[in-house]
């Protein structure tokens, strides 16, 4: 379980993370979404004690990371692929990591097997492809059999088979009761693997909840309705405090009301409908809109200051 409480990180005058609070709970895959520069990697580095927050608190099961002894037994992290001495073999890399946390060498062979690197374990890691480096990073994260896992863009550089593998791995880790935080810029990927989403933009929390919640929070989902009497229907809908706009072809676009309810309003008033079509936003659209708003907000605030 990871808890962030009002965390801010400044580098000089740049605010990388701005009063961010959220939890990563056991038994779930929490997706961490945001455009480049949104502060995802900085946040993850603060979780594992590499960067210190300017203010606020980050804890793992209630403890600051820097207080943990042998932390690999509690938290596994893949922060950047190939943070590895190129002259060292995959096996030796995992061996020193295991040594540093009192983990036996047998576990090294286990994780190499689990990520499919057993055959190349003795080769110098400098010759590894990006995908192999990513697998080695995941092996390192799994080394201490930790209850909490953080993976920064784990599908980067993986082929479709590798992506499929990561997806199943994340699901099975969560099913085992672990807390899993995974960042990605691939919204479609998150829709498939994440139980909950945390959306950030410019270091701020924009949305948090299930994938459905996040999509619903964006205003991109709408209902298109073409009727015999658009003017009357429009007034009826506006009376119910629903956002309605007229289209050039005479149809109406209704936001904030389900298609079924629009149909009921029209039916009760005896208005003939020609078309009633719901357009639900994709996670991608929701994400674009949510983060665009954040960018505008920050820009206006910056101009006012």
């Amino acid at each position, binding site marked *: 379980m990871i808890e962030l409480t009002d965390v801010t990180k400044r580098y000089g005058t740049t605010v990388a993370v701005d009063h961010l609070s959220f939890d990563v709970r056991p038994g779930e895959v929490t997706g961490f979404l945001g455009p480049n520069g949104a502060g995802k990697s900085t946040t993850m580095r603060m979780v594992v004690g590499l960067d210190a927050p300017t203010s606020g608190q980050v804890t793992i099961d209630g403890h600051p990371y820097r207080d943990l002894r042998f932390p690999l037994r509690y938290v596994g992290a893949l922060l*950047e692929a190939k943070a590895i001495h190129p002259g060292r073999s995959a096996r030796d890399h995992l061996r020193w990591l295991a040594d540093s946390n009192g983990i036996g060498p047998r576990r090294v062979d286990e994780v190499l097997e689990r990520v499919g690197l057993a055959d190349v374990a003795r080769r110098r890691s400098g010759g590894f492809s990006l995908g192999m480096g990513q697998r080695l990073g995941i092996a390192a994260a799994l080394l201490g059999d930790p209850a909490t896992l953080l993976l920064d863009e784990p599908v980067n550089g993986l082929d479709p088979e590798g992506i499929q593998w990561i997806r199943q791995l994340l699901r099975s880790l969560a099913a085992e009761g672990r807390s899993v935080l995974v960042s990605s810029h691939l919204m479609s990927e998150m829709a498939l693997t994440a139980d909950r989403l945390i959306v950030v933009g410019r270091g701020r929390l924009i949305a948090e909840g299930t994938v459905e919640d996040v999509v619903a929070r964006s205003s991109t989902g709408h209902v298109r309705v073409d009727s015999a009497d658009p003017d009357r229907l429009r007034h009826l809908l506006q009376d119910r405090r629903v956002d309605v706009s007229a289209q050039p072809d005479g149809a109406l676009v209704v936001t904030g009301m389900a298609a079924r309810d629009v149909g009921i309003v029209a039916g009760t008033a005896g208005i003939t409908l020609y078309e009633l079509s719901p357009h639900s936003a994709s996670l991608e659209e929701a994400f674009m809109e949510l983060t665009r708003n954040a960018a505008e907000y920050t820009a206006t605030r910056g101009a006012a200051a």
Partner: protein
Amino acid sequence: MTTATVPTTTARQAPTARRVFGANVRAEWTKLRSVRSTVWTLLATVGLAIAFGALIAASQMSSWDSLEASERLRFDPTSFSLSGLFLAQLAVGVLGVLVITSEYATGQIRATLGATPQRLTVLAAKATTFTGVVLGTGLVASFSAFWTGQAIFASKGLGASLGDPGVLRAVFGGALYLTGVGLLGIGVGVILRRTAGAVAALVALLFILPIVTGFLPSSFQETIAKFLPAQAGMAIFNVVPDPRALPPGAGFAVLLTYGAVSLAVGGLLLARRDA
């Protein structure tokens, strides 16, 4: 939510600080022996100590007959045979620098500090492991250079033996000297974090500063030069007292102080900086 099948931080007993240190010494040992450059650098240390020492000893013997009596009296066969360590220190110093800077260059430092957030423990474990490895190599280098030198001096019927007063101390001192320089290398490396800058700084401290002080008025030169890291540390090689150098023990203590200060400053920065 599923039943937790994995342990949480509270479920296991926390290891002691000593156990964390021991585990990190093992980890650093694994790191050192799993890259080829370590072995090459250590072989270079021994090779330079013997070869360069033999060269200087041979040239001294070829000019021996033309030396004045006072110069012959000042001749220190032990210290002379260890001259090669002046060059060998570069290999050891660079190895010390690389212990830290290669981790920054490859990004591995984030894996290291992520695995052990007790950063001073990491630095202490690095210094400890390195001391063990370099002390061992230094003993091989120092004793080999001593015996090679004595074999050359024997041509003129000169030479020292390990049983003579102060000689064993001086030859052990050769290994201690290399270790002191290596620790200074680690200290400079952890402060500067970049290989090129740290190696340049170390070369400046060990080789350039003595040249620069050579341009100072002789009174300054004599007081300052003997406190420079290499000049101070090498006093431990002297068996025949050298009036321009500090006493052997004091000189080595000055070198260790440079190393300790650089490690302390480096440790402070390491603990405070973002990785």
